[in-house]
């Protein structure tokens, strides 16, 4: 059985500061983000639901790396830029969102073939980048449990890839900090291996945390 568990990072300091969290803008977790990650670690210790984890991957952004270190401290993670949030160029990275709130389009699924702001990666390219990386990782780790600590966009792109959703999306997705989204490769009635969504945005460990 191949299990892919996608974990969104805890609340980021860049989010609190209202700036774009690319490689420069991301300064790791906020105080709340650290407490969210600690709540997830306590949950995992209690339930043992990731005790069979065989590999841990993160994006290269500090908020994801820091989250992984807190939730699975005994595991060595591998950082991959292919698992980063929608890429931004140096001009966009670290800029306050409110500086250009009139000239960007959000969410990026509204117009998937155009950058959501000048210097940003279009959604369609992002889905291809993430889908290819997850395909590569789940092939390499077939039959095992793989944990990927990443971003809301990556979790949305995984759903888009595995469920073959349209790129221009009439719906929205809510993905909380430190939530768990789990996919498994399972045989269908005809014995064909198919991606099966086991849970989406499971954040039960955040109840009562503020």
């Amino acid at each position, binding site marked *: 059985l191949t299990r892919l568990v996608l974990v969104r990072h805890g609340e980021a300091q860049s989010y609190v500061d209202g700036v774009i969290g690319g490689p420069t803008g991301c300064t790791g977790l906020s105080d709340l983000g650290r407490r969210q990650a600690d709540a997830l670690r306590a949950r995992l210790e209690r339930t043992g639901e990731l005790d069979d984890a065989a590999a841990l991957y993160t994006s290269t952004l500090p908020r994801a790396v820091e989250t992984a270190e807190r939730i699975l401290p005994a595991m060595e993670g591998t950082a991959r830029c292919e698992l980063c949030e929608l890429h931004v160029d140096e001009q966009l990275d670290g800029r306050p969102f409110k500086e250009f709130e009139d000239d960007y389009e959000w969410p990026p699924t509204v117009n998937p073939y155009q950058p959501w702001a000048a210097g940003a990666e279009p959604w369609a390219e992002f889905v291809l980048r993430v889908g290819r990386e997850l395909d590569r990782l789940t092939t390499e780790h077939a039959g095992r449990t793989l944990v990927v600590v990443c971003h809301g966009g990556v979790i949305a792109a995984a759903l888009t890839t595995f469920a*073959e*959703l349209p790129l221009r999306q*009439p719906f929205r997705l809510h993905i909380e900090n430190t939530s768990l989204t789990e996919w498994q490769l*399972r045989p269908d*009635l005809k014995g064909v291996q198919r*991606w099966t969504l086991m849970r*989406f945005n499971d*954040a*039960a460990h955040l109840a009562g945390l503020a």
Partner: protein
Amino acid sequence: MSDVTRLVLVRHGEADCNVGKRFGGPLGCTGLSPEGRRQVERLRDRVARTGELAGTTALYASTLPRAIETAEILNEAIGYPTIETDERVCELHPGEADNMTFVEYESTFFAEGSGRWRDDPSIPTAPGGESWTGFLDRVEAALLDLTLRHAGGLVVVACHGGVVDASMLRFLAMDPQYRPARFVTENSSITEWTRRRDRWRLVRYNDAGHLQD
């Protein structure tokens, strides 16, 4: 009034018909198994602890006993005055397959050729029953109607795995003829949608954290 409506779909606890591997239509459904009641009690205790369904403005169940029992147990934590039943959130209507075991169904109807529904989802799954696409249409319309009827509120619906599947397929704009991905909706799990300005938002799917401890 809030411009956001919450729609919470709760799959029933394990039912006698699940254990017996039989179709649980009006004949075949005899309510929850002892394990099913325990599952819903854990959900009830979780909801009482977290308060995540505080402010419920409507509580519905399908007309099938396993969904009604689920709503009754869950309501011990919610405390809503009434449970309204609505046939439109029933599981796929099984027609003449009702109360048959899955094995009996395979030998009776699949052999006769109505098993073609697996290739053509517009064909009823058994004589007198519903097709998969007919079921998706019925559920999509019902969930939208309940959401609009209680706009700005919190609508809790005790229902079925198929109903949860239908919400995923339709609200996420998936092709009904082709299902690349599959879903495994657990007994007593929570799936939540919100609707704001004519747009669905998936908030969580198959949250069964209360069964893990």
